[in-house]
């Protein structure tokens, strides 16, 4: 099973350089609960300059965003047991006094509009309004209203204390690559 060099159509060295020194962790591939827990806990090891509270925030943000990739990616790999796993990319970077966490995955263009609208709503709200929005959406979910319930993105914005930096890049006529980035400052605990 030795791999011949001509079997590679990319430069691992270029990839390595692209993942420059600001990138602490990167992963591309199928995402399931095992991968999430392992990478989530691995991130806690590499974000050593963060306080305990910062680490908690990173972990919470990671779990919600990675779960979205897992559940909503348009690219998936089928398992033998019939289940399928969403594919996506997770990156944690470190820039001076903050960490950045980015997730990305391919989405169907028809599915992504409400998600973008939700992100824009979240970014337009101040903290108190965001808390109210979370209460309202959780209440709707608990009353079983359809198309509600995903409060993960609201939670991410509240936990990170950061807007959701979203980007949509067309892949083909039906699909796009969607990414969400959030900043988490190294010690953003407020004493007030």
């Amino acid at each position, binding site marked *: 099973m030795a791999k011949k060099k001509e079997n590679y159509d990319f430069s691992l060295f270029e990839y390595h350089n692209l993942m420059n020194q600001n990138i602490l962790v990167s992963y591309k591939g199928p995402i399931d609960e095992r991968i999430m827990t392992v990478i989530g806990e691995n991130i806690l090891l590499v974000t050593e300059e963060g306080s305990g509270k910062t680490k908690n925030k990173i972990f919470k943000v990671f779990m919600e965003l990675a779960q979205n990739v897992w559940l909503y990616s348009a690219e998936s790999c089928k398992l033998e047991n019939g289940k399928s796993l969403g594919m996506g990319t997770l990156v944690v970077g470190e820039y001076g006094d903050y960490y950045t966490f980015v997730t990305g995955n391919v989405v169907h263009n028809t599915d992504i509009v409400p998600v973008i609208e939700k992100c824009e709503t979240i970014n337009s709200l101040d903290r108190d309004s965001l808390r109210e929005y979370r209460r309202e959406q959780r209440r709707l979910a608990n009353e079983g209203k359809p198309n509600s319930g995903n409060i993960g993105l609201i*939670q991410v914005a*509240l936990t990170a204390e950061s807007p959701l930096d979203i980007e949509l890049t067309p892949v083909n006529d039906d699909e796009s690559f969607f990414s969400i980035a959030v900043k988490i400052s190294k010690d953003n605990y407020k004493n007030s």
Partner: protein
Amino acid sequence: MNDIHIKGVHEAFFVPTVNFDSKTGVCELEGESYLEETIKFYTPLFAWIKEYTETVKGPLKFNFRLSYFNTSSSKCLVDILDMLKKYQKSGGEVEVNWYYDDSEEELEEVEDFILETGLDINIIPISEVEE
């Protein structure tokens, strides 16, 4: 009626420790809640509360000591708090204590649970508790 005892697990998923005592009415939910099938896990807990409040009708004391819960779990926590509020409204004796780890964000979330459910929750910093 039966008690519920579930030992917490921290593996690929995180199962909280659950101890619901039907003799004393003391219910503990602690650890981490991130589950494969959140509703499936919480459904027996809802059923226990329903049975207790309809048949035993004794006092209920809930102690939450959750260091981590994801958003899916938070929906089930609100469902539990709703049931407790309903019981209290119908004359049941209910005490709810939420132990939190000095995190402003968790404090805000519990304050939001109070606003969402109308239930009084005693918010207690773990640092003030000596055991």
